[in-house]
C-alpha cells in the first residue's frame, strides 16, 4: 500500500468500509432472503463490486496512474444516481432497500457524496501529476 500521505488515505478508508458493508449486506440478503427483493439485493452486490474497484482505482491514481479512476468514479456516480432515481420512480422493484436506494439514505447519503469527493480529489491529483512531469 502507498505510504505517501494525503486525502486519498481517507477515501481509501471509506471505500474499504463500503466494500465490506455493501458486500456483507448483499451476500447475507442474497443467501437468506433472496425472494423478498432480488433486484435490490443484486444491485447491492453491484455496489459492493463498484466500491472494491473504486478502492483499487484510487490506490492506482494516488501513484499517478489516474486512467482507471477517471472511468470508475464516473461509473459509481452514475450507479448511485440511476439506482437512487429508480428506487423512487419504480418502487415495486425495491420491496426492500438496496445500498444506493434513495441515493444512499440508509448510509447518511455518504454513497452520493463519495464519488463526487473522489472526482474532486482526482482532478487535483491530475493537476499535481502534470506539474510533476
Amino acid at each position, binding site marked *: *500500500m502507498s*505510504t505517501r*500521505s*494525503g*486525502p486519498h*488515505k*481517507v477515501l*481509501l*478508508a*471509506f471505500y*474499504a*468500509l463500503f466494500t*465490506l*458493508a455493501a458486500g*456483507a449486506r448483499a451476500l*447475507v440478503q442474497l*443467501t*437468506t432472503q433472496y425472494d423478498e427483493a432480488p433486484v435490490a439485493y443484486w444491485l447491492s452486490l453491484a455496489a459492493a463490486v463498484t466500491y472494491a474497484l473504486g478502492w483499487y482505482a484510487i490506490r492506482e491514481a494516488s501513484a499517478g496512474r489516474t486512467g482507471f479512476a477517471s472511468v470508475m468514479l464516473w461509473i459509481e456516480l452514475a450507479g448511485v444516481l440511476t439506482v437512487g432515481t429508480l428506487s423512487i420512480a419504480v418502487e415495486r422493484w425495491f420491496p426492500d432497500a438496496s445500498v444506493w436506494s434513495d441515493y444512499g439514505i440508509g448510509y447518511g447519503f455518504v454513497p452520493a457524496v463519495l464519488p463526487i469527493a473522489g472526482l474532486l480529489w482526482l482532478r487535483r491529483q491530475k493537476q499535481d501529476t502534470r506539474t510533476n512531469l
Partner: protein
Amino acid sequence: MPSVSTQITYIVVGYAVLVAVLALVIALRRRERPRWLDQMVWMLELLLIVRALAGLGPLVGDDEPDSTSTYVGYLIASICVLPIAMKSIEGDRAVWSSAVVAVAALAIGVIAVRLEMTA
C-alpha cells in the same frame, strides 16, 4: 437493567465518538497524529474484543439473534476495522492519518449500534 453486553456497547459507542472527535480535531488543526491517539484506538479495540466475547453469549444460548449471519457479520467487523485502518496508516503520522482514525472510529460507533440492534 440492560444486559452486560448492552452496557459494554454504551461504553464502546461513547468512547468511539470521543476518539472520532479527538482525531477530527487533530486533523483540522493540521497536527501530526500523536502517539496517545494510537493508544486510545487500541484501548477501543480492547473494549471491542470484550464486547465481542460478551456477544458470543446469544449465539450459544436460547435467546438467539433474529438473523445470526447478520449478527456474526457485525461481530467480526467490529474487531477487524480498527487493526485494518491502523495498518493502512502505518508509518504515516501526517495530518490525513488522523482523519482515517476519525472515519474508522465513527464506523465502529455505527457498527456497535447496529450490533446491538440485531442482538
